[in-house]
């Protein structure tokens, strides 16, 4: 009983199936041609194959692997953006997804309007946004630009605003997908600090990164994916080392 209570994310035997992008059928003519030739169902691609793992409350997991190995797919699966084709995903807690900072910003709207819109996208209420508005603006350090349409922002500025909005809550699960690569060093520092703070407060973290150093710093566990399957999972240090070794072998 106790172990079940501690488990906050449980992915069992999850498989995600995509239709191959190159064979995407999005008009009727093509659909019928393919239907007649009976080619319709055959172009599929498994982005994740039988992935199982369990995350306990308060743990920090790093997701590592080469490009296209299924890291982002796994995050999207946990966020509920994707549904598993087979297997189950159970999440017991609130999630703050930072898959892309400022997803859902509308370029025509001003920053103030976007803060409310983005907050709404993340599922916060109006009262909550009202009371945290100043905190967001302070953290993003963009006080003088609040009435400017976001389309005139630089990508770094937009990312700062996005991070400030997404981390204003103390979610039970924080999901971060390589978003910290944007922004200057000072801001990255600030983001890391805030993530450490949240971890100390008992937040569970899922973190995708290609920088082993950051993974080692932030995470106590890691899972290594390759072509949709789990190669290794467990304590961060050995998994990171094994992954680095495999990279240097394939380099030679």
């Amino acid at each position: 009983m106790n172990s079940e209570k501690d488990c906050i994310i449980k992915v069992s035997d999850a498989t995600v199936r995509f239709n191959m992008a190159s064979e995407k059928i999005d008009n009727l003519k093509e659909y019928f041609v393919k239907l007649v030739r009976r080619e319709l169902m055959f172009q599929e691609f498994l982005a994740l194959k039988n992935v199982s793992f369990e995350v306990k409350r308060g743990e920090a997991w790093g997701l590592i692997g080469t490009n296209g190995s299924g890291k982002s797919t796994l995050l999207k699966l946990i966020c509920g953006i994707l549904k598993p084709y087979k297997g189950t995903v159970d999440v017991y807690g609130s999630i703050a997804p930072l898959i892309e900072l400022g997803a859902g910003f509308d370029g025509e709207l001003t920053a103030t309007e976007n803060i409310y819109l983005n907050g709404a996208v993340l599922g916060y209420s109006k009262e909550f946004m009202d009371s945290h508005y100043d905190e967001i603006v302070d953290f993003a350090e963009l006080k003088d630009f609040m009435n400017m349409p976001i389309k005139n922002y630089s990508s770094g500025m937009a990312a700062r605003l996005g991070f400030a909005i997404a981390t204003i809550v103390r979610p039970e699960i924080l999901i971060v997908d390589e978003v910290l690569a944007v922004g200057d060093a000072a801001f990255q520092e600030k983001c890391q600090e805030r993530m450490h703070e949240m971890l100390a407060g008992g937040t569970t973290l899922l973190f995708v990164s290609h920088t082993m150093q950051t993974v080692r710093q932030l995470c106590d566990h890691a899972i290594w994916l390759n072509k949709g399957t789990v190669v290794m999972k467990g304590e961060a240090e050995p998994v990171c080392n094994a992954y680095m070794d495999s990279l240097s072998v394939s380099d030679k």
Partner: protein
Amino acid sequence: MNLFLKRLGGFYKYRFLMEQLVTKDIKLKYRRSFLGYLWSILNPLMIMVILVIVFSNMFRSDVTNFPVYLIIGQTLFNFMNESTTQAISSITGNASLLKKTYVPKYVFTVSKVTSSFVNTLFAMGALVVVFVVCRVTPNIYYLMIPVILLQEYVFCLGLGMLLAQGSVFFRDIQYIYNALLTAWMYLTPLFYPIALLPDALRDIVVTFNPMYFFITEFRQIVLECRMPDPYLIMAGTISAILAIVIGTWAFLKTQDKFILYI
């Protein structure tokens, strides 16, 4: 039942998002234009004046109070036209957002139809102007007008959901639908009296065209100062319920696959 309650709870949780999306659409529609929201009233008025000039020589003798007749049809049809055209791209247009964060997908479709509805309420200002100019006096049956608007809103919502989910899988639908809208417009008695249609065609329109139900209900209230025909009220309600049931069913059935196609 449990699932239904859960969905209703989700709807409640995301009401702020709905509100934000609707205000965004309305704010952005006229941002940077000099007259702003006034255009919601001016635009239908201008189109009506042009149509009155064009058609006054052709049908005026058959229709009493032609400007009023025309603007009622025009306002209601425009709402359907605008809301469904917006709804059709509501899922594909928000692809970047749907790929990156979890939001109930129907929120986008519902908010598009709702912002068109709010816009139509503004456009009712044009209706009032025409009523005053043409000396139409209000009567007790005006209390039925919100019911007609609700019927049409629910109908558009259903149709919008059906189209939005369809166009995710086949983008062609939006072009086909554009052509169908033109046909639909000419098969709805907007600027001609229904009696002008040949018998066979008229029977089809009277039986199967929901826009005919809504518009005729409205016209009977305003122009004939009476309760709309029970047949029309029934037909309007049934078409609204049918549309929302079919639309919601199709949408819920396919929504998990959207992500693979957007």
